[in-house]
């Protein structure tokens, strides 16, 4: 199988992480690593390299050896693509992000200096979602962009994807009977996203997504969760995405996307 990325002109964390997910699913189905043709565009290739795509792609794809590059410049990346397999990975992500996020959150987004802590907490919770609920391989990446045309300000884009059992699969055993025929990807997403249900009976569980939503709302951000054939979103005033979309192409596992915009100076 071939993944042809030669003509790729632009890619963000969602695209990179989705490529890895697609490659890992294709590889598992065929029993061999799929081949990926990397972008011809040197800027895109360099950006993928800075985002750590090649390091992770070795676990998923086979591809031709990359030409040696000169001394690398200091990284401008908020969080390189990072595999999440264990809780140790979450600790490393939180430590790494704390060291980098402060400057980006304050200078590009205009958030207060202390916002690095809720930002790190949010990342911790969103990554733990993979380990605790998906029980499958996952990746996270984050980067800041200037959305000059779309929004007229900087944003931080966070993407988390896993190839676990998805929200419907995770919650099914505990909650599907109550929903009867209505049990689906969309009702499972509503149950987790809006009502904080989890497969655990422990009332302390299920806070992660709720608290992430609360923090994203506080920063006027967008959060969406896609799983199976549905996607649910908490939509800020600057976006016009529908809060629920059903009948999408099947996505094994889950994708959580967060966009945090710069504060608007009044």
């Amino acid at each position, binding site marked *: 199988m071939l993944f042809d990325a030669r003509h790729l002109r632009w890619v963000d964390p969602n695209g990179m992480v989705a490529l890895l997910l697609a490659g890992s699913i294709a590889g598992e189905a065929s029993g061999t690593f799929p081949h990926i043709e990397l972008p011809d565009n040197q800027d895109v290739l360099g950006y993928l390299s800075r985002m750590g795509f090649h390091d992770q792609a070795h676990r998923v794809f086979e591809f031709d050896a990359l030409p040696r590059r000169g001394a690398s410049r200091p990284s401008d990346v908020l969080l390189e693509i990072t595999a999440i397999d264990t*809780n140790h990975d*979450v*600790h490393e992500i*939180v*430590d790494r992000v*704390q060291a980098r996020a402060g400057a980006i959150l304050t200078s590009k987004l205009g958030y207060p200096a*202390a916002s690095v*802590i*809720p930002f*790190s*907490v949010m990342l*911790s*919770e969103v990554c*733990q979602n993979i*380990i*605790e609920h998906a029980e499958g391989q996952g990746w996270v990446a984050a980067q800041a962009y200037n959305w000059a045309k779309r929004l007229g300000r900087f944003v931080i884009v966070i993407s988390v994807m896993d190839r676990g059992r998805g929200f419907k699969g995770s919650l099914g055993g505990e909650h599907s009977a109550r929903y009867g025929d209505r049990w689906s990807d969309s009702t499972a997403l509503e149950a987790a996203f809006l009502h904080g249900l989890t497969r655990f009976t422990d*009332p*302390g*569980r299920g*806070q*992660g997504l709720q*608290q992430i939503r609360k923090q994203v709302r506080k920063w006027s951000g967008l959060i969406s969760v896609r799983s199976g054939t549905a996607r649910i979103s908490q939509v800020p005033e600057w976006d016009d995405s529908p809060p629920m979309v059903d009948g999408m192409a099947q996505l094994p596992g889950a994708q959580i996307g967060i966009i945090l915009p710069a504060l608007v100076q009044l």
Partner: protein
Amino acid sequence: MRQGPDPIAIDVGEVLQRSVTSLYSSLVTRPTGRAVRMAIETQLQGAGTLSISLIDFSEVGIIDFSCADEVVAKLLQQYLADDARDAFFVFRGVREPHQPQVEGVLRRQELAAVVEVEPERFTLVGSFSEDEQRVWDHLETEGSLDTDAIERIAVQVQDARALESLLARGLAFRSPQSGRIHALSRLVAHLM
């Protein structure tokens, strides 16, 4: 002979490094929180059946909701449900960035805790009624209430109920010997 609860000081930052790994500086992930809680419980087992612990978060950089649930909410729940032991807790060093996590997990389970939010400034955090807040504020200002003061409070039925509720929820301590009711902050003052 000891009249009050056994005092215990627990530095969560130190427990984190000792019980999980010295590489971790943040209190994140549920297994980490669970390991820290179990280490705290081991320390508490060395105390008598009546104890008051100062749980100090001053050296913790980040605490997430999963860890706050394990280290704060589950710890409180466990000892509130334990008939054999009376354990009281005061949480120290819960700086502003930690407060949403601690408050969030307490409210979710309708718990409350005495928390030092700034040096020597204590407050109730979590889920509590206005009556409980008012009576707790009075107790915190006074430091302790003798039987005469308690009787004066008892004139107002809702205040009497609130005081009993604070005692039942582990937010105030009544000496079994004197009947005097103490603010928890005063019982841990010598540990700070």
